[in-house]
């Protein structure tokens, strides 16, 4: 199995991007905002895929970097009226810095221990968001985060321009992460996933590769967090909590780890299931659960993983 061989995910991904861009103007604003949410969640899921799918490190604390960036934007935009670039750079840098710090602790562990350490570190960020009231406004959250003004003829406050804005960001993130995954660095990560000892024997610095993957992944999670803050206009500890991390992990697992486009697909499925099924029944969690179980039983490598021919 080699994730770089199949061209199908790229075709599907480009197709989905073009289709989304083409369909958007005809959509009413509610489905459009959901589609915007899918694009943001897709960036987050793809960032985690670098860790989970390519490096084989399942992180349960990805909401920490996502949330750190969202908080950075929330605080800068409301208290300092910071503009587009300041928010974007500060958000991504802070998330990257948080990942660089946490990575030092987390990368020593593997398997279940890695899950537990990332979970604990994620809770640290949640605790800060919840308790550092003077900075984060605690449980009440930061409301009224304005969307950036790009001096374009269209205001990003309207759903359609904002959707295109996010779609471009998602496409850029996909291209960047895809290039990374195909680079020699990315291939090394996959080698580490398959056999750490063999890679070490070949002379690769396994720790450094894993650490860099962790930091890059955190940075891109932060990139998603920046847009999330603009999208909702609101940041609260809920964005940083464990449920967000778990949901991201499920998106990747559902779509197919090691296929960036698959993670995006997983994000789309979960966002739409959550928002559409819950309209019809209070028991929507049951249906979501059934979908997870179905995927695990019938397509253990995720939806896109299952579409991949031929199996090893």
């Amino acid at each position: 199995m080699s994730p770089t061989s199949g061209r199908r995910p790229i075709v599907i991904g480009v197709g989905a991007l073009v289709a989304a861009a083409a369909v958007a103007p005809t959509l009413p604003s509610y489905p459009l905002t959901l589609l915007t949410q899918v694009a943001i969640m897709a960036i987050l899921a793809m960032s985690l895929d670098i860790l989970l799918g390519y490096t084989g490190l399942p992180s349960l604390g990805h909401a920490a970097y996502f949330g750190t960036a969202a908080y950075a934007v929330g605080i800068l935009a409301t208290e300092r009226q910071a503009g587009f670039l300041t928010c974007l750079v500060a958000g991504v840098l802070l998330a990257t810095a948080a990942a660089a710090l946490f990575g030092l602790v987390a990368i020593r562990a593997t398997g279940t221990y890695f899950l537990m350490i990332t979970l604990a570190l994620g809770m640290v960020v949640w605790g800060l968001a919840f308790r550092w009231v003077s900075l984060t406004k605690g449980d009440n959250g930061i409301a009224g985060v304005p969307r950036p003004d790009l001096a374009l003829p269209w205001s990003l406050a309207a759903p359609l321009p904002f959707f295109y804005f996010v779609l471009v960001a998602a496409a850029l993130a996909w291209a960047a992460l895809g290039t990374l995954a195909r680079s020699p660095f990315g291939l090394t990560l996959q080698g580490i996933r398959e056999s750490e000892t063999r890679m070490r024997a070949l002379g690769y610095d396994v720790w450094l590769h894993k650490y860099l993957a962790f930091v890059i992944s955190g940075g891109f999670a932060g990139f998603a967090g920046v847009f999330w803050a603009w999208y909702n206009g609101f940041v609260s500890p809920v964005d940083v909590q464990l449920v967000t991390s778990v949901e991201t992990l499920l998106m990747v697992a559902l779509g197919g780890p090691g296929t960036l486009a698959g993670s995006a697909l997983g994000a789309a499925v979960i966002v739409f299931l959550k928002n559409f099924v819950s309209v019809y029944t209070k028991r929507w969690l049951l249906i979501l659960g059934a979908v997870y179980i179905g995927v695990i039983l019938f397509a253990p490598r995720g939806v896109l993983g299952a579409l991949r021919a031929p199996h090893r």
Partner: protein
Amino acid sequence: MTRIRIVASAVLWALATSLAAPLGAPAQSAPIKIGFLAPLTGPFAQIGKDMVNGNQLYLAEIGGQVAGRKIEVLVEDDEGNPATALNKSRKLVDQDKISILTGGMLANVGYALQPYIDAQKIPTTYPVIAADDITQRKPAKWIVRTGWSTSQPMHPFADWVLKNTKYRKIAAIGMDYAFGYEIIGGFQQVFEEGGGQIVQRIWAPLNTNDFAPFLAQLRRDSDAVLALFTGRLALQFVKQYEEAGLKGKLPLLGGGTITDETVLPQMGDEAIGLITALHYSQALDNPANAKFNKAFEASAGKIPSYYSEATYTNARWIVEAIKAVGGKVEDRDALLAALRRVDLKESARGPLKVDDFGNPIQNIYIRKVERVGGRLQNTVIATYPAVSQFWKYKPDEYMKRPLYGRDYPPCRYCQ
């Protein structure tokens, strides 16, 4: 072949129903759509259900219509999550074209929706969300609160304690989040101005499993203890307070939710004697409340909590406003003005009207837990009529002070 036929007929049916709706009736007699948010999954699901029940009960009582138009309620699950609440509101506003938005339970949901509601200009009421600043330092133009503001019952409560008890040194323990700060802070503000002292303030995390370490810290030289908890924590705190042998020694006072009717039926004798303050009690003795109690018990099979009363009275409030505009809910400005003018001479919780900031001026009840006819109830022992969210302060002076918080008012008498 059959599959194609099924798909085709489904598509036709969908087309037919979607076309029929706008053609069916002129706007004036079309149903009035009300969007209703409540947490129906997650830890607050039970409260969410109470909220839905109260709302449905009132609308059923008036036959589901007003001013010649049917009322259609679209209930959405906000999961107690601000991002979900925003999503669902977008759905209700953009797709369902609701005329009025209502519901919501948690403070962060209230703050998250506020900018969206003001941008969309949707007349909205908050029956339960109590965070002070929504009608104080950050008032929302399009939101009318039909419930209460968190510190509203606590100002008169402190006044009552000063006038009717000898407690002058009180130790406070509350949940470590905004709701806890505003409850304890409101009490402290008035209590200390009247000569009392808060001698200790303990903030317990929301996921506390054992109160023993906190109970051990409580100062035994204080005259009484003021506590604020909700749900599971309320049950556990009151129980452990008795087990620690504190009940006989340090009288227990509390914010209203510590004995509200979502937890009271599950409490035992340990709760008897607890004194709290809130804008409602299920045991309140007035004809409107008697009628509400009877109808609610008949339909839901249990006694109503303040959450049910909140959405019941909220539904009535909305209906009164719709009547006032003659059913023309499409005129949003007029509807908003009507919502702000509602004046209920008698409701299940007493007379209600709105102040200039969109918060009710209402009675505050000092309640004591007693066992009556075999079950526990919050017996009303004193009534403060027509209490404003600003108590006796001038609004602008009141709002110059910071919002009650973890460190405000400062704990001057703490050691």
